[in-house]
């Protein structure tokens, strides 16, 4: 692999770890949904760098489009703040 590709994947992976931790500890569930979409975007970048364009094409609409939509619906029908 190219060094630039490895660097890009590393930065995206670190960003995804930070976003995942913040999504887990966040008390505001709407913020948690947005953070998990950030994590998914970083994952999509990693898949692209690892030469799996098929997975990118299915991962972007499902994890950035449909999953946040369904989660926001769930939050709307229950409560926004945890705890």
């Amino acid at each position, binding site marked *: 692999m190219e060094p630039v590709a490895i660097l890009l994947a590393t930065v995206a992976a670190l960003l995804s770890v930070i976003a995942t*931790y913040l999504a887990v500890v966040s008390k505001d569930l709407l913020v948690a949904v947005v953070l998990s979409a950030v994590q998914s975007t970083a994952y999509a970048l990693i898949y692209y760098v690892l030469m799996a364009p098929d997975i990118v094409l299915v991962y972007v609409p499902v994890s950035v*489009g449909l999953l946040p939509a369904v989660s926001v619906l769930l939050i709307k029908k229950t409560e926004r703040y945890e705890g």
Partner: protein
Amino acid sequence: MRARELAIASSVALMVLLLAYVIELGGLGPLAPHTIRDLAKSYLEYAYNPWNATVSSMALEAVTAIVWDYRGLDTYFETSVLFVAIIGVAALYRGYREMRGLGGAGLSEIVKTSTRVLVPLILVAGASIAIHGHLTPGGGFQGGSFMAVLMVLLAVVFSLDYAFERGLSSRKLLAIRSAGLIGILLTSLALLVAGAVAGVYAYVFQNMVRESSELSMPRWIFDRPLGGTLFFFNVFESLAVVSGLTLTFIVLALRREEVDHALAAGEWYE
């Protein structure tokens, strides 16, 4: 979001980085080989192989060839599982009514205008991913979920009332979903039926000519590769996925007044 949380998150990320470095050095056991394995090589050589069509699926995209030809039956049951899940969601809310005039006006005029610009772009991107599934990365599920995101966007930005007024209904979506599944079933059985009529050997999920079977799906459309069944599978799968995922979203997004009727019916049964 406080500085303390950010510091903890950064240190977790640093730990993951160091752990990855240790794994890369081989500190936690042997690493997987970096060379291409024989199985992968055979798929790469056979996916598009006009010189030996009895082992080929004549598709330029190896992933689609594997998903819909070499392991086509697996993908068929994956589609069935998704269908059963969607039927489960619809059955959980059985008895709901789609109502208009509940006061949803959608988002502001700025969002609506910019969404109108986006709509044809997403639609064309999704359709081309699905229809070119045997030539470029992507396929039926990918293109279908692109278009499902478009439908969700429309339902959120222009409100559910608008979608219902424009003729969208869960009954129609379920009909499109069923038509897509029937199309997949007919495509997988097409050569078997043709073989039974002509009195020669054929297989379920057969794509190109095989040893002991002369029948074959079309390889070319005009001067472009078609990939036989793969093109039809991708088109029908994208129809089934876009209608199924949109149906799920609409059923989950139903308003209180629309579900009340179903709840009352449930209590009556008890």
